[in-house]
């Protein structure tokens, strides 16, 4: 549909010139290689399940290529180390899982205010609290509505395959540098552990602005100094609060205008559209294939950016189809954004975490369960 792009295809075309290698790796490894292909050799992290493979990947790989790995003493420290490294103009990142992402909230708020380009990966586990160590999609609201204080936005990328985890990691660093802003990649335990074939290839997204603000000592900047700060107090900060708000608002508007990404799957003549992201989107697609085999007119709409959310695209779809079914592994979070976009033009149903096959904290919403729901609605 108009306005939607198949990002994976686009990325592949853009990077066609580069040499490619095909490998069988997990989603977490794909993120690691994506970072290295993007030139990110500064990683700071703290162990937490279910993302330890990521921390261990960087511990193993970065020293081989002259990079820096630190196992920080906390998520507070890890995100502050990322802030410090990003302030020097290099590509830096951290990875964590839900409780750790909460701990990084204050740091991310500061990173947003100081406009430090970097990547944070949240491999979601079931919450709230310590919750479970198993996969879930219970951080959507936290990821898309800020997370820390102060009303900032994360650019949120939601990959659904190992290939996308590799490609989106590179895209994330490009977007971060393009906007001088941080990017969040929201994945989950299933995506991280899933092994898939990935084409390893450096992607070139085009030129980026120079980082003339980076800290490297005044001698290398003709005696001019830079102050990287999240403070906006008159007389104690490089920029006044009002000026900052004006500028950041324009930046967020530009992101909403230019960076919405989504994908449709078999929606051409669909009467019912499933809306899902990440691992739930893969499950929804499998259910749709089975429903199509039964002659049902069903498709999938998949946001690739959760913020900015593809509001216009969902709204346009609402004029074509008679109902929506949101499939997400939570009690219902993204469904709020879908309902806001649909604006009561069509009913929006939810198949959420209560539909898992196992009530013990594990399990998942299986394709068969989604198919059953589709049958009831069509």
């Amino acid at each position: 549909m108009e306005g939607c792009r198949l990002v994976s295809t686009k990325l592949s075309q853009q990077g066609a010139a580069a040499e490619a290698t095909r490998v069988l790796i997990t989603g977490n490894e794909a993120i690691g290689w994506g970072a290295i292909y993007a030139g990110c050799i500064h990683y700071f992290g703290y162990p937490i399940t279910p993302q330890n493979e990521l921390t261990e990947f960087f511990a193993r790989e970065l020293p081989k290529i002259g990079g820096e790995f630190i196992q920080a003493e906390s998520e507070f420290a890890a995100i502050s180390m990322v802030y410090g490294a990003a302030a020097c103009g290099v590509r830096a990142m951290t990875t964590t899982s839900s409780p750790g992402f909460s701990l990084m909230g204050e740091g991310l708020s500061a990173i947003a205010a100081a406009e430090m380009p970097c990547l944070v990966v949240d491999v979601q586990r079931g919450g709230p609290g310590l919750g479970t160590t198993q996969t879930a999609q219970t951080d959507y609201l936290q990821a898309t509505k800020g997370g820390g204080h102060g009303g900032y936005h994360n650019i949120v990328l939601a990959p659904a395959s190992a290939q996308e985890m590799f490609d989106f990691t590179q895209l994330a660093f490009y977007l971060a540098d393009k906007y001088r802003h941080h990017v969040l990649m929201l994945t989950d335990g299933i995506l991280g552990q899933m092994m898939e074939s990935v084409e390893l290839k450096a992607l070139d997204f085009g030129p980026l602005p120079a980082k003339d603000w980076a800290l490297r000592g005044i001698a290398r900047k003709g005696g001019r100094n830079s102050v990287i700060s999240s403070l906006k107090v008159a007389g104690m900060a490089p920029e006044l609060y009002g000026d900052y708000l004006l500028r950041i608002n324009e930046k967020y508007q530009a992101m909403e205008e230019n960076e919405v990404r989504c994908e449709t799957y078999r929606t051409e003549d669909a009467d019912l559209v499933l809306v899902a992201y990440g691992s739930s989107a893969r499950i929804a697609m499998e259910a749709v294939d089975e429903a199509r085999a039964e002659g049902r007119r069903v498709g999938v709409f998949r946001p690739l950016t959760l913020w900015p959310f593809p509001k216009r695209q969902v709204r346009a779809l609402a004029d074509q189809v008679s109902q929506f079914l949101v499939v997400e592994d939570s009690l219902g979070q993204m469904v709020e954004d879908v309902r806001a976009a649909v604006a009561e033009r069509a009913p929006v149903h939810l198949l959420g975490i209560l539909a898992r096959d196992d009530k013990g904290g594990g399990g998942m919403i299986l394709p068969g369960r989604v198919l059953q729901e589709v049958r009831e609605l069509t």
Partner: protein
Amino acid sequence: MSKVVAGKPAQINDRQFMWCPGCHYGIITRLIAETLEELGVAGKTIGVSPVGCSLAMHEYLTLDFADALHGRAPAVATGIKRVHHGDALVFTVQGDGDLCAIGMGDAMNAAVRGENITMIFLNNANYGTTGGQLAPTSLVGQVTSTTPDGRDPQRAGYPVHMAELMATMRGVVYAARCAVNTAANFTRARKALKTAFQKQIEGQGLSFVEILSACPPNWHKSPTDALAWIAETMIREYPLGELKNVARVE
């Protein structure tokens, strides 16, 4: 013919300090600028400022600076140092609430790693910015806005001795406590700070300089009475001197 015998260090700009009358942060800002000038390293030095009154230091020093969140200066400095390594000198400046209350974990873990940075710790025995509350460094019996009857060890514990604590860490190669309440102490503090930066230049490990600092408004004392309190009371609790000066043990 006139000869300049004293002047403003090149790294201090013309803005007026925001600090209160009798506060030592202006003196310490000058001390840092003079030390960097003397070592000829100002051009490659990056400062990390904290949450607290010393945050404003980046307004007066023409150096690259990053502001950290409350307590996180050693972590931010770590990120910076791990990018530039020997190509930059990195120092933190932190108050007592920032470093040894909310930031104790970050400070101690920077020491655990033996991070090759210089940490400057400004101990004024209270939370200055927020109006004089109890700090981990407040003295026993000290009246603060949250210990109106004086610090009672039974309820609020005992003063923390950061320089001594840091000296116990293998990753720390230099630890000293100084004051700037007299000209002689200022000179000793300058020597300590110079040694601390030299340790970093040589890549030996973490260097730590604690500086006792006056906070007259929150101590409810005049600037001169504050000087006397440092000399007669504070230094008794926090003895001055070099606590550790070693080469990195490999």
